[in-house]
Structure formats: structure tokens, C-alpha cells
């Protein structure tokens, strides 16, 4: 069988790529995509431990994570629409309305 360590390593790599994407990209949409990548890494970890421990709690928790990810995507994309209406841009550098 595949060792759970392999899943954890893959989850770690995915999460790191997601963090890099959130930090590096200027495009708001791509930053949200990188966030979804990180949610997927978390889900992969939960599933791996659910399989390793033969416990369904991990899978139920992954369902909750997917729900929160969907809510986050809806609100984040709503924010993008609002930002485009206000400033006509999706670059995060230009979202500086509250800068003093």
C-alpha cells in the first residue's frame, strides 16, 4: 500500500505552491486560485489520515472544508467584481483605498 507519508509530502508540496502563488501573484483571481490549491492540499491531508486511521471523521471534515472553500470562492469573486467596478483593475497593488 502507499504510505500515508507520501500523501503528506504531496499535500505539503501543494500547500507550499499555493502559498507561493498567494504571495507572488499580483492578479487577484490567480491569488484566489492559489488559495483553492491550498484548500485542496488540506483536503488531501485529511483524506490521507482518514485512510491511515480508518476513521471517517477526516472525510466529514474534508466536506466541511470544501463547503468553506466554496463560500470563500463566492465572496472572493464578489470582491473581485466590486474591485473592478470601483477601480477597473484586478491587480492587488492597486487596491489601496484604505492607505493613509
Amino acid at each position: 500500500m502507499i504510505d500515508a507519508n507520501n500523501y503528506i509530502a504531496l499535500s505539503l508540496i501543494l500547500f507550499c505552491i499555493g502559498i507561493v502563488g498567494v504571495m507572488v501573484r499580483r492578479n487577484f483571481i490567480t491569488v484566489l486560485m492559489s488559495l483553492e490549491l491550498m484548500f485542496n492540499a488540506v483536503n488531501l491531508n485529511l483524506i490521507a489520515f482518514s485512510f491511515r486511521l480508518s476513521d471517517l471523521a477526516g472525510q466529514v471534515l474534508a466536506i466541511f472544508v470544501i463547503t468553506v472553500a466554496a463560500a470563500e470562492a463566492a465572496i472572493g469573486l464578489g470582491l473581485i467584481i466590486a474591485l473592478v467596478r470601483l477601480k477597473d483593475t484586478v491587480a492587488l497593488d492597486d487596491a489601496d483605498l484604505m492607505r493613509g
Partner: protein
Amino acid sequence: MDVLAANFAEILFYTLAVLTVAGAVGVVTLKNPVHAALSLLFTFLMVAVLFVLSHAEFLAAVQVLVYAGGIMVLFLFVIMLVNVKKLAPGAAFLSGIAPLAVVGGVLLGVLIAVAVLFGVLAAGNGDGTALRMVDGHEIGNTEAVGAVLYTTYLVPFEVVSVVLLVAMIGAIVFGRRSAALGPGEGETQP
């Protein structure tokens, strides 16, 4: 045969892992948001196959339906809405993507079938059976998840529904045309 099956699982896992990481790197590195979104879609589908491989069949279906179906459509919709000026009229990227999409779909089907086949093989070894048990009977992953979700985790389930309601109201408020205007200016709009 057991040795072959075990090695086969390893090969399948590492292939999927490499493809998943490649898709994730594509999300971060590709400049065109549409290309990044398609790369993200590929990553979601590969993760779905990985879910099947670790006996989470119901979550694999949820992953395809919610992520690949719902969230990706939302992303692509917003990209189309935002980049209207950049996209040439009658943009041609869909026709070039279509053969790749067909190949990818067939590949995903084969991968899921193989993963399910391997899951059935592994079930004989006593692995993952606990993820299909309901009251001592082995029924299926979906039924088992539902039995746990609606009994042990009923309160968190209800709380999550409130979270979804709040997110829906928030998305509607953000999406209103008058939300981008200052206070009082929104009322004058029809």
C-alpha cells in the same frame, strides 16, 4: 499478483502526484488567467483521482462536482467578465483547447476506473473497509459518510449551513451595483 498490484499502486500514485504538482505549478506560473484556471481544473481532477485511491469515493465525486463543476465555472465566469477588453471578439482559444480537453477527459476516466479497480483489489486485503461500514454492515462510502455526517456531526453540519447562508448574502451584497458607490448614491440608481 499482490506484488504487481502494490507496485502498480505506487506507480499510479507517483504519476498522479507528479501531474498534480505540475498542474499546481501551472496555476502559479501561467500568465493568462484562463490558462491558470484550466491548469487548476486539471489539478482538481487529479486530486479527485487521488481521493478515489485512498478510498474516499464520495469525496472524489464531491470534488468533481463542487470544485471542477461549481467553483471553476465561477472563476471562468469572473475571468470572462473582467477581461472583456483584453479578449478579442470571437476569441479562438476554445477551439485549440477542445482536443486537449477530450484527451484529458478520457485520461481522467481511465485513471478513475483504474483507481476504483485498485480500490476493489485493496478491499480484499482489509484496507479501507472501515470507511464503508454502517452499523457493522459493509455498504458503501457514501452511505457511511452520510451516517456519520447526520448523526455524530449534525451540529457542525447545521453551523456550516449558516456559514453558506452568510456567504450567499455577502456575495449578493458585494455583487450589487450600488455596493461600489458611496453611501446614499446607490438609491438614485434604478
